[in-house]
């Protein structure tokens, strides 16, 4: 049951990733098409801070962070655990994946928050 639930989440977060990663690519790769600015302009420091100031961006980046990390790390865990291994080693894989996920999530959230609270004009 627990495994089924974990797998369901792997699939349920996909719509979130499609929309948010689609937006992320629209900004980072299709900037000339959708925003009329060059790819370099879309990625310079001011533009990034400017974007990061919006509450929507704060929420959406944290959501993308959580969804993509969960989906990707769950997938990676599955690939590793398909290999022959003892139950104890399997447990170690699980715990390592969870720790990496939590650390990267906390760190990414902090960075997004840092951008959001960057002093205006500073």
């Amino acid at each position, binding site marked *: 049951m627990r495994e089924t639930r974990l797998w369901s989440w792997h699939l349920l977060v996909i719509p979130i990733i499609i929309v948010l990663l689609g937006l992320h690519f629209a900004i980072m790769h299709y900037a000339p098409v959708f925003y009329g600015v060059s*790819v370099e302009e879309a990625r310079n420091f001011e533009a*990034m801070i400017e974007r990061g100031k919006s509450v929507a961006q704060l929420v959406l980046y944290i959501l993308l962070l959580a969804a993509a990390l969960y989906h990707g790390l769950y997938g*990676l865990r599955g690939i590793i655990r398909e290999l022959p291994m003892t139950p104890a080693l399997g447990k170690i894989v699980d715990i390592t994946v969870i720790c990496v996920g939590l650390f990267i999530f906390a760190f990414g959230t902090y960075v997004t928050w840092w951008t959001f609270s960057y002093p205006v004009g500073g």
Partner: protein
Amino acid sequence: MNSNKPAYNNRLGIKGWVYAGKYTFERYLYLGHRLTGMGLIAYMLLHIIETANRMRGVVAWEGLMGLFALPLFKMIEYALFAAAVFHALNGVRLLMTELGFFLGRPKEPVYPYSSSIKRHRPLTYIIMALAALIIILGGSSLFFP
């Protein structure tokens, strides 16, 4: 007597991942999906650490973006973009398969058998053509701004 002989003789070894003579199209898509999935998660972990360089200020950030503007990094970035588009579209196909869409109605298994994969295949081709189109268009805005 032969009890310590493997039941299945994995004659092709790792080569068999890529080619075993009669893999279907979908089997290659599976391989691609797995490789792109691993590439994406590896990239994502590095990406969070790399974009955190913004906290070191304008100079550090612009330095990093300057590095990424080099042709080598442009190529890597394009490969990543292509991998993401392929993984996403093939993933949508997998989702539909897993939820049972576009597989046709179950039928009596009467010879010559018709497989649900074959019934699904036109959709597979359409989705892959769409992926190719998006990948080509994405490249054009990257390389010819």
